[in-house]
C-alpha cells in the first residue's frame, strides 16, 4: 500500500481513454463500476472538449457481482457498436473490473461484432496513466497497421508520421501545429499525425511514411519501436523543445529525409537574443529545480543550462519508465535524479535544493506558492490553465519564445532587484507590505494562517534556526538583505558558523559567510 494525497498520473485506463478521445472512429468500452465516469470531466472540463469522450462504461453494481457482470459487459459492447458505429472498438477493464476477472477481450470475441475489437490489458495495480496510453496506442497501431511489411508508395517528397500527441497532453495541440509547420519548411510531407486527430483508418497508412517522428516517447515509443521492427521505419526521438534541441531535431530529420535543413533552421526564434541581451545578465546562475514527465524535464534542464544560463539544482521525474534517461541527464549537471511519484518527496527535495525558480507540474506550482518561490508549469498533469486560448506551443521556434516568456516572467527582473535594494527601508516597500495599489483594501497580515500545514511550510524556511544564535546587531544587519534572499543568507551563514564552531553569529560572521559563498 502506498499513501497518496495527489497523484501525477491516473490509472492506466485513463491513458486508454486519452488515446480513444484523441482519435476519430475509436470507441472504448470499459468494464467499470459507477463513479469511474468522473474521468469524462477531464476531457469536457479541463480540455473543454466539445463532445463526450468516446467511452462506454458498464456501470456494474454490488448486486451484479453475484449475478452476471459478463453479460452486462457484452450488452454494453453491443449497444456501443450499434449506437456509435466506430471503426475500431477498444475493450478493457478499470481497477475494480480487473479484480472480478471477466476478461473483456475474450467476451468481445464471442460477440461476432461487425468491427474489430482490440483487447487491452491494463494492470491497474502496477501501471499508470502514461503506460496505459502507450500500451493502448501500441495495440491500436498493431491492429490497424498490420504486421505484413509492404512497399512504400512512390512519391516525390519524403514523408513521415508524427507520433505521440494526445488529448490532455501538455500543449500537444499547439506542438503539433509547430512541428507540422517546421516539417513543411523542410519539404517533408506528414503522412499521419497520431493519435491526436487521426482516424482509425489513418493508422492503416502509418507504414506508408518513410520514418516516424516521436514527439512524446512516454506515449509513442513502444509503437514506434514496433513500426521500426516490422515496417523498417526509422524513428526520430530527439524532442524539439528548446533552441538547441530544435536544431538537433531539424538536422536529424533532414538527414533521414535527405533534404537541406537550412530553411527550417532559418526560422528565427527570439530566445537566443533575449538570453544574450545584457538585461538577462541577472539570470546567470539562478538556481532552478525541475520536475515533470521525462520528456519535458530533460528538455527543460537543457534549456535552463545551455540557453538561459541557470544552474540546475534539482532534476526529477515521475515517469519511472524513462528513469534511466532522466538519470543520465541529471548526471550531466552533477545531480542525482529524483525518481518518485510521491509529491511530498518532491516538496522535500525542493526545500533542500533552495531553488530560485521551480519548473514543474501543477503540484510543484502549489509547493512553490507555499514556499513563495517563482514557478512555471512545464508538464502534465494538466490543469485548465494549461489549455490557453492563445497559441502556446513548447516545441520548435515559437515554443522557445513561449518558454522564455513563461519562465522568465515569474522572476523578479534585474532592474527590480536594484530598486528593491534602494528602497528596502521604504515604509511602503518591505516584505510584509501588500502591493501598493492594494494597500487601501488589503487586510492586515497576520502571522498565523488558518491551516496549520500552510503556516508550517511558509514559516519553515526562516524558522529553521539551528543551535547557533545571532547577536542583535547581526540580526539587524540580516534584515537589510532583501527578503527574497534573506532565508538563503541566513541558512548559509548558520551553516558557515556551525562548520567553524562560531557562536554567536556577529556582523563579521555574516560578511565572512557572504565572502565564502559568493553570490
Amino acid at each position, binding site marked *: *500500500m*502506498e*499513501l*497518496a*494525497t*495527489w*497523484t501525477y*498520473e*491516473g*490509472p492506466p*485506463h*485513463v491513458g486508454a481513454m486519452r488515446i480513444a478521445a484523441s482519435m476519430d472512429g475509436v470507441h472504448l468500452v470499459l468494464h467499470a*463500476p*459507477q*463513479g*469511474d*465516469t*468522473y*474521468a*469524462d*470531466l*477531464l476531457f*469536457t*472540463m479541463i480540455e*473543454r*472538449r*466539445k*463532445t*463526450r469522450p468516446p467511452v*462506454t462504461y*458498464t*456501470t*456494474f*453494481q*454490488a448486486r451484479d*457481482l453475484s449475478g452476471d457482470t459478463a453479460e452486462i459487459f457484452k450488452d*454494453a459492447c453491443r*449497444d456501443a457498436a450499434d*449506437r456509435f458505429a466506430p471503426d475500431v472498438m477498444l475493450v478493457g477493464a*478499470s*481497477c*475494480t473490473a480487473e*479484480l*472480478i476477472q471477466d476478461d473483456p477481450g475474450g467476451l468481445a470475441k464471442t460477440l461476432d461484432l461487425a468491427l474489430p475489437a482490440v483487447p487491452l490489458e491494463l*494492470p*491497474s*495495480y*502496477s501501471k*499508470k*496513466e502514461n503506460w496505459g496510453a502507450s500500451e493502448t496506442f501500441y495495440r491500436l497501431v498493431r491492429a490497424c497497421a498490420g504486421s505484413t511489411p509492404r512497399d512504400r508508395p512512390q512519391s516525390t517528397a519524403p514523408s513521415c508520421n508524427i507520433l505521440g500527441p494526445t488529448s490532455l497532453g501538455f500543449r500537444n495541440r499547439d506542438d503539433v501545429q509547430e512541428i507540422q509547420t517546421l516539417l513543411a519548411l523542410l519539404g517533408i510531407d506528414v503522412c499521419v499525425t497520431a493519435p491526436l486527430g487521426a482516424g482509425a483508418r489513418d493508422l492503416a497508412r502509418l507504414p506508408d511514411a518513410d520514418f516516424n517522428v516521436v514527439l512524446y516517447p512516454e506515449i509513442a515509443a513502444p509503437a514506434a519501436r514496433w513500426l521500426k521492427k516490422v515496417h523498417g521505419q526509422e524513428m526520430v526521438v530527439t524532442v524539439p523543445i528548446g533552441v538547441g534541441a530544435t536544431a538537433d531535431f531539424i538536422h536529424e530529420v533532414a538527414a533521414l529525409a535527405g533534404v537541406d535543413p537550412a530553411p527550417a533552421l532559418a526560422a528565427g526564434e527570439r530566445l537566443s537574443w533575449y538570453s544574450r541581451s545584457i538585461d538577462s545578465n541577472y539570470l546567470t546562475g539562478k538556481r532552478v529545480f525541475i520536475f515533470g514527465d521525462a520528456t519535458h524535464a530533460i528538455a527543460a534542464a537543457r534549456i535552463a543550462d545551455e540557453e538561459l544560463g541557470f544552474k540546475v539544482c534539482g532534476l526529477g521525474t515521475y515517469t519511472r519508465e524513462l528513469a534511466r534517461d532522466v538519470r543520465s541527464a541529471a548526471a550531466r549537471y552533477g545531480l542525482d535524479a529524483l525518481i518518485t511519484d510521491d509529491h511530498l518527496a518532491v516538496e522535500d527535495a525542493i526545500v533542500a535544493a533552495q531553488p530560485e525558480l521551480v519548473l514543474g507540474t*501543477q*503540484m510543484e506550482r*502549489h509547493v512553490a*506558492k*507555499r514556499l513563495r518561490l517563482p514557478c512555471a508549469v512545464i508538464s502534465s*498533469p494538466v*490543469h485548465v490553465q494549461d489549455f490557453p486560448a492563445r497559441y502556446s506551443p513548447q516545441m520548435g521556434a515559437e515554443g522557445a519564445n513561449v518558454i522564455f516568456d513563461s519562465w522568465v516572467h515569474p522572476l523578479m527582473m534585474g532592474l527590480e532587484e536594484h530598486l528593491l535594494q534602494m528602497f528596502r527601508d521604504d515604509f511602503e516597500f518591505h516584505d510584509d507590505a501588500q502591493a501598493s495599489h492594494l494597500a487601501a483594501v488589503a487586510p492586515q497580515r497576520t502571522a498565523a494562517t488558518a*491551516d496549520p*500545514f*500552510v503556516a508550517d511550510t511558509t514559516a519553515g524556511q526562516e524558522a529553521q534556526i539551528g543551535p547557533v544564535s545571532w547577536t542583535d546587531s547581526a540580526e539587524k544587519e540580516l534584515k537589510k538583505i532583501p527578503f527574497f534572499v534573506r532565508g538563503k543568507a541566513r541558512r548559509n551563514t548558520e551553516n558557515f558558523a556551525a562548520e567553524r564552531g562560531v557562536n554567536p553569529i556577529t556582523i563579521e560572521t555574516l560578511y565572512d559567510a557572504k565572502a565564502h559563498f559568493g553570490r
Partner: protein
Amino acid sequence: MTAVLPVDSATAKVERADAAGQPVLRQRGQHEVFCGLTSIIWLHRKMQDAFFLIVGSRTCAHLMQSAAGVMIFAEPRFATAIIGERDLAGMADMNDELDGIVARLLERRPDIRMLVLVGSCPSEVIKLDLPRAAARLNHLHGPDRRVMAYSGSGIETTFTQGEDNFLAALVADMPDARPDAKPSLIVVGSLADVVEDQFKRIFQSFGLTDVAFLPSRSSRDLPAVGPKTAFILAQPFDNVTAQALLRRGANQIRAPFPFGEEGTTAWLNAIAAYFDVDQSRVDAITAPGRARAQKAMERYRETLHGKRIFLFPDSQLEPSLARFLYRELGCEILEVGTPYLHRSHVASELDALPATVRISEGQDVDKQIDRARAASPDLIVCGMGLANPFEVEGYSTKWSIEFVFTPIQGYDQAGDLAELFARPLIRRARLNVEA
C-alpha cells in the same frame, strides 16, 4: 398551484405519489454520476478535525483530485491508501500495511482527532474488512484519536450517498441520551455554516435550545440520541442515517426540504408543529425571512418563468429542486432524474409536481441524452461530464455539482438558488458569440 405545500406526516403519502400519475422510469445502464467517495470533498471541510483515508486504488486518488481540482492549496484532510500488486498477491499483509500508513498519518497530523477509513470498490470486492480494521486501530490509537469506517464505494453508493453512510456511522458513535433528557432536535445533512447559523437563530426564537447539526463541526460534538430526540432531514439523500436514528429511538419529522421560501417555511413549520410552537408565533418569526426570500427570487422570475427544465440525476436533490423551480419560479419541469428515489423522504416534493413530469431513477445516460434532445429544454441541469457537450449543441446548462457546494437552503439563500438557474440563461442572452 395549491396554496399550501403539503407537509407529510405519514408514509401513506408514498402511495399517493405513485398514484398521482407519476410512474417512475427506472433505468440501468451507464451512470454518469460520481461515486460516494466524492462527498469527502465537502465532509472534510465540514468536520474540521477529521481525516478521511480512502482505502482503494489509484483511480480513487485520481477521482478525488479531478473532482476537487488540483486547486486546493493546503494539504487536504483526505488521502488514499493505494492498494498495489504486492497487496493483492499476498506478498504484503494489507492490514499491516494499513496500520503502518495510519500510524504515519496520525504522527504527521497531530491535529486529527478522528480518522475515517473509507471503503472503495476495490476494497469491497476483495472484502477488506475496514470496520474491523477500525476497531483494531482504535485499540492502538484511542481514545484520543477515534478511528471509524464506512463505505463510499461506487458499486454501492452514488455521490451524496457517501455522506449518508458517513453520517450513519456517526450515529453509531452517538451517546445514549439520559433517561431524563429534555426534547431535542437533530438536523441531519451537511449545510453550509452560514445556513446552520441562520437556522440556529430561528430555532432559538422558537424556543428550541437543544438543537444539534449532523455532521457536527467537530468530531467531539456528537449529540446524544434517545426517545426524546427528534430529527429532520436537511438533505434528502441521508436515508440510511434516518433509518439508523429511528433504530436509536429517535422520531423523524417529515417535511419538504428547505429550498425556496415555500420549502423553508414548510420545513420550519413542521419542526415548530412537532415542538408545539404556536403557529402565529412561528408566522411572526418567519415573516421577515419569507419576505426577503420572495423579494430576492422576484428578480429572477421573469427570466425563469415558463422555462422548460430537464434535470439529469446527480445528487438526489433533483425532486426538491424541481419542486422549487415549478412552484416558486413558474418553470415547466420535463424530467426529474435522480440516482435513487427515496419516495418516503421526497413524497411531498413529488406531490407538489404535476403529473406531466417524468420521474426517472437510475440512468442509462445515452438514452437520457436522447430524451433530453427530444424534449428540447431551455435549461439542462447535469453533471460536468455532460454540460459542455450540451452547450455545444446549443442548450443552456447548469452544473448540478454546485448544489452540494453552495449554500442554497433557507430563506436568505432562496434568491441565490434561483440565480444559479437563471445565470446560464442570462449569460446566453448576453453573449454574442457562438460555441
